[in-house]
């Protein structure tokens, strides 16, 4: 669908600003007395990218969002939006729009007034306001809701109105603060797709805070995984999934989460690898290009294996296969989760239901040794 023309430029050089509409956060910290919420955040994204801030609750992601929006000030550091430092610029002049978890609709105003409020405040002429409302209502298919009060809307409709209010602003940066957390599971998936479509259509830079790693993976161009006020890893979803920089990122991203198996790095027949022990087997599995780890032979490492990297072994690939005893199965429909023990640790394998064996039976699993990752148990960092 072709986008109707944007409302008349509010900034003389709005085209220019749109081009540089990226976000840069430079060494931002936030402390309340001795409590350090953010400990030096550095993020830079290009115009039109979709940035995800993801982490468990209390990791500082919402504080960072408030700092980007200007609702809170950083203790130190700089925030750049659209190429200018906005530290001393109030939220309304940052050219941003925000969608909140609780929707934050104005309860006594109907949908039309909710969308118009920001326009009125910025003294947009009445005629132009109506045009913007029509455009937004059409884009989000909520023409029929315009005269209703928020109390008369369902959760999904309220979320749509909240997005409409943000769209009416036509900002250079959209901020989403856990916008889907209050919706039920089915609606959440629908709205997720809709937000992604919206981003593809508008190509505006977006920042999205969530604690849901699936939302992070599905929506983001760039993901910043946060914990304890520090960015644990910043990269593309695929990078973060395949090459997590530490144990926390590895366990946080992916469901079911990555298996961590304690083992020794050993050398056998000139090959460096790990020894794995199951209830029914013991095997040495060499690592491809393991020579880079020659210095660590004999040390303890943590082997990180995604459940889907443990697949059913076919008779021919004998190299990295190990026989295990099934303790428990969890069918999910498309896949069946097999629970077993390797080196005394509970391990989950994701296999095709056709290949799954029942509890107590043994089956052979192949490890994709080219994809596994190793972590240092002390520093918890990934070994290159």
């Amino acid at each position, binding site marked *: 669908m072709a986008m109707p023309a944007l409302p008349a430029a509010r900034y003389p050089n709005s085209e220019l600003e749109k081009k540089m509409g990226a976000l840069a956060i430079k060494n931002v910290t936030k402390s309340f007395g001795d409590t350090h919420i953010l400990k030096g955040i550095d993020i830079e994204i290009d115009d039109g990218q979709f940035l995800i801030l993801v982490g468990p609750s209390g990791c500082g992601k919402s504080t960072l969002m408030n700092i980007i929006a200007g*609702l809170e000030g950083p203790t130190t550091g700089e925030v750049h939006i659209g190429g200018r430092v906005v530290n001393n610029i109030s939220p*309304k002049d940052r050219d941003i729009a925000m969608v909140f978890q609780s929707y934050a609709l104005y*309860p006594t105003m109907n949908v039309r007034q909710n969308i118009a409020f*920001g326009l009125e405040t910025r003294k947009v002429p009445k005629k132009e306001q109506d045009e913007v409302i029509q455009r937004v209502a059409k884009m989000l298919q909520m023409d029929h809701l315009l005269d209703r009060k928020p109390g008369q809307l369902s959760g999904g409709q309220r979320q749509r109105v909240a997005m409409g209010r943000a769209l009416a602003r036509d900002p250079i940066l959209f901020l989403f603060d856990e916008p889907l957390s209050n919706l039920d599971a089915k609606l959440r998936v629908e709205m997720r797709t809709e937000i992604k479509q919206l981003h593809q259509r508008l190509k505006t830079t977006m920042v999205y805070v969530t604690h849901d790693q699936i939302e992070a993976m599905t929506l983001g161009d760039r993901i910043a995984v946060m914990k304890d006020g520090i960015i644990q890893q910043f990269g593309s979803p695929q990078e973060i999934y395949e090459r997590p920089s530490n144990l926390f990122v590895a366990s946080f991203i992916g469901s079911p989460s990555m298996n961590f198996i304690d083992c020794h790095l050993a050398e056998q027949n000139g090959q460096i690898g790990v020894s794995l022990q199951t209830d029914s087997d013991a095997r040495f599995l060499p690592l491809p290009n393991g020579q880079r780890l020659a210095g660590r032979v004999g040390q303890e490492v943590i082997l990180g294996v995604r459940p889907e990297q443990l697949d059913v072994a076919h008779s021919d690939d004998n190299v990295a296969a190990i026989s295990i005893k099934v303790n428990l199965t969890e069918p999910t429909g498309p896949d069946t989760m097999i629970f077993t023990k390797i080196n005394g640790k509970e391990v989950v394998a994701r296999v095709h239901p056709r290949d799954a064996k029942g509890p107590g039976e043994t089956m052979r699993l192949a490890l994709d040794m080219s994809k596994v990752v190793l972590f240092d148990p002390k520093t918890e960092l990934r070994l290159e």
Partner: protein
Amino acid sequence: MIQSTRPAQYGFAERWLPRLVLAPSFLLSLVFIYGFVVWNGYLSFTASSLLPRYEWVGFHQYARLFANDRWWVAVFNLFKFGVLFIGISMLVGIFLAILLDQKIRFEGFIRTVYLYPMALSFIVTGTAWKWMLNPGLGLEKLMHDWGWTSFTFDWLVNPDMSIYTVVIAAIWQSSGFVMALFLAGLRGIDDSIIKAAQIDGATLPRIYWKIILPAMRPVFFSTLMILAHIAIKSFDLVVALTGGGPGFSSDVPATYMYAMAFTRGEMGLGSASAMMMLLSVSAVIVPYLYSELRRGSR
């Protein structure tokens, strides 16, 4: 379903015990509230003076009442008092609530300080303010002692102004309560609404005026109801503060009724004035109850 599974012997007690327990209070309120209301209504149509005398005189007492200057002083006083007391208490209370809502330190302490006057009875408030406003004892004397000899604040003894001293004392007593009601309402407003409005570019006064206060409508109405009936019933504050004086300049209908019925031996007139008060309270309460009950049954 549940009842049928219970042993039969509980049936009798279960049916009758609640009624039995409620019967005394039901009976008491029936006799001492509604019974006396009816009795008073009857008295207002009789020629009762010092004691009840059941001689039917029709609307004679009401005619006397409406021809009585003192009654009209009382009515206009109630009007002035009501409007000023409700209006100013509401404004002060909302203002305090908004200030307290700015996430300030020691909020719990400050809230208690403002709410404390509500814990006093109007008699105590009236007495304390009588001392403070007494020109020979309180504020005026203090100013004179400090050397500001031209200072006068004689409202308490000035027939034109005495009703306003009642207004001051009543506002002092009630605005903390209004503040508590509105603060509770303001706390119910989602913080992110304010954040959203800030990003929309609204200033704090505009946020309160356009978004938050309109959402306080239910709080506003319940506060109005509570203050209105406090105003109409006001008796003890006036008695303690001004005693209705100087002369009868600060009379309100309740003190008028008391004076007529119990000290001036004009029971019929007093009853008639009491009926007028009952009708004005009903005029406020009945529509309110009607709307509340209708909402409840839906």
